């Protein structure tokens, strides 16, 4: 039983790491620039598609990483310059409509460019296989490396925001855009960079999940809602909040999926237990969100106040 628990905690950490890559960018864009960007998941899809096709074409994992980061980052930058930039001053409904439209557009664009067949990406040799962590627990290397990358990105973002001039400007720009502008800083360019950074992080998540998950049209929408749950739980606008939220959601989801069915099967007849367990498992992260919002309506670690 304890092996199962340790394995689930690792699974939770790994899922949390992936959610963090997506949520940290989304929370910067949503919390700091004030844009509800539903297209965020699309960058993840673009990254995964670029990675899978680069890997097939060159056979190199490094090329796949490069293609994902550059592809998602460039697409994000173009999107910001052409569409998002016009939305800062509009209300949230306009933003939701416009970025929802961009989801449909991106799905169609990816279909046209890459085709409809799900592309294939293999796990690179140095990440394949499992390591023996405990006598009866072996864990996939690729999932461990996921946790590691998540941790590195968390440290990197923390350093960027608290220790650099750009980070200072991002924080200041979020509080008072016009004041930063008046100080002679090109706030528009700064926001474009933040947006592209968010997209690059999505691309990173994309290249990492491509060997594990199906690369397919619409993969971004599936993860988007969970990502929004993460930033609501963590508190909108803060990267620390995104980290805490991602880890919490990852843990609750993994442990819930393992232990809710086991517990219910012990207590109830199988027919009732299976239906009830499936329902409770699907709802677990939303229950978590509801409980946290009851106690702290602005999330655990909101950016301001």
């Amino acid at each position, binding site marked *: 039983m304890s092996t199962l628990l340790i394995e689930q905690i690792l699974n939770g950490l790994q899922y949390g790491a992936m959610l963090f890559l997506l949520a940290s960018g989304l929370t910067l864009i949503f919390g700091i620039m004030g844009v509800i960007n539903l297209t965020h998941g699309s960058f993840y899809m673009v990254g995964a598609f670029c990675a899978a096709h680069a890997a097939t074409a060159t056979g190199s994992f490094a090329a796949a990483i490069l293609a994902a980061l550059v592809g998602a980052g460039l697409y994000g930058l173009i999107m910001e310059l052409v569409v998002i930039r016009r939305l800062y001053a509009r209300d949230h409904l306009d933003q939701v409509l416009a970025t929802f439209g961009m989801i449909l557009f991106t799905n169609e664009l990816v279909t046209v460019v890459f085709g409809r067949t*799900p592309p294939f990406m293999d796990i690179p040799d140095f990440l394949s296989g499992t390591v023996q962590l405990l006598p009866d627990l072996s864990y996939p290397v690729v999932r461990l490396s996921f946790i590691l990358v998540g941790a590195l990105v968390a440290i990197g973002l923390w350093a960027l925001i608290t220790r650099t001039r750009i980070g200072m400007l991002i924080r200041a720009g979020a509080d008072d855009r016009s004041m930063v502008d008046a100080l002679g800083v090109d706030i528009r360019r700064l926001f474009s960079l933040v947006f592209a950074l968010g997209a690059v992080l999505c691309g990173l998540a994309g290249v990492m999940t491509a060997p*594990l998950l199906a690369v397919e049209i619409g993969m971004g929408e599936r993860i988007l809602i969970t990502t929004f749950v993460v930033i609501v739980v963590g508190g909108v606008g803060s990267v620390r909040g995104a980290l805490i939220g991602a880890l919490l959601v990852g843990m609750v989801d993994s442990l819930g999926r393992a232990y809710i069915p086991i517990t219910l099967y012990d207590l109830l007849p199988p027919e009732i237990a299976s239906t009830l367990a*499936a329902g409770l498992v699907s709802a677990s992260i939303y229950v978590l969100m509801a409980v946290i919002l009851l106690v702290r309506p602005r999330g655990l670690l909101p950016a301001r106040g």
Partner: protein
Amino acid sequence: MRNWLTTVTFAALASTALSAPALSADAVRIGFITTLSTPAGYIGEDLRDAFNLVINQEGGKLGGVPVDLLVEDDGLKPANAKQIAERMAGDGVKLFSGVNFSNVLAAVAPTVLDAGAFYVSLNPGPSVFAGEGCRPNYFVASYQNDSYHEAGGLAANELGYKRMVILAPNYQAGRDALAGFKRSYKGEVLAEIYTKLDQTDFSVEFARLRSMKPDAIYQFHPGGAGINFAKQYANSGVAKDIPMVLPMFSMDQRMLGASGEASKGYYVAANWSAGLDNPANKEFVSAFEAAYDRTPTVYAAQAYDTARLIGSALHAVDGNLDDTEGFRAAMMKADFASVRGNFRFGPNQHAIQDWYLMKIAPGTDGKLAHIVERKVADGMQDSYAASCTF
């Protein structure tokens, strides 16, 4: 310049508007409502392409009768599909096919049938229309949904697995799949695990599997979820200890390409494979590959059969769909060589066919394919046929 352009455009528009009805004046129109967008779009693409292949082979005809295939995308939304069906039926279309999902079919079939038209299914065969709810103008040329999983149970028996864990997403088709499997499986089911419908990561389920140590698992996860499942199963190391049996939907030919070596060694229950040894199938596979430059899926095979079946019936009534009785009788005869080998209709107008146990292994060209190991059922009839009366 502008005037000149406008004139040309109008002329072009006018000529297409005029020529379209003129071309199809005596052609039988076939409403083909299918899913071309969404992640499942590749399935609709294969259905449409294989159906068109037969029409193109005959130079725009089916069974010697000129046809117009009216293809529309339902976006995997039952409400959309119903609207399209209503519009087409209102336009006088008498013959429909193309739907690739049970929930969409549940909206399309009654609409079409109530308007007095025919529906011939080339993929789903939901239980609601297979037993007491069977209808005289409704044919299923593919399979009854449960049969796939009953064949899975038979395959597991053949392989000698005594203790199994079975997994499916938590929705109607998933629950039906596991019920179908249990109907024919003789061993003990250690646990039924229902995954979330949109779940992408299965590490948690694998950990539970490892703790239960079954002889094998049976899993039904169509589309992207199935690719995820197969890839992660291989990568997690469970695959070495616990073999996997799955229906073809969980690993069709395109998914095979998207999961790479991961799916090697898995057992598949199915009614067709590209390597099935009969002349009709050989001709189909090479014609499909020549026309579209890819290996056909099981969906394509079923669509190809459906088109040829419709062709045989159209031929018998000389394209006159108002001869309802004649068309029905001709359909029931199923006078065509199926790429699946033995093929006939049961009393509920659902296909009766053979089922196979296949293993995913390198084919003659070195690429992974579904290699037929043995037949697990000869002319299997679905479990609803007895309760159908017209």
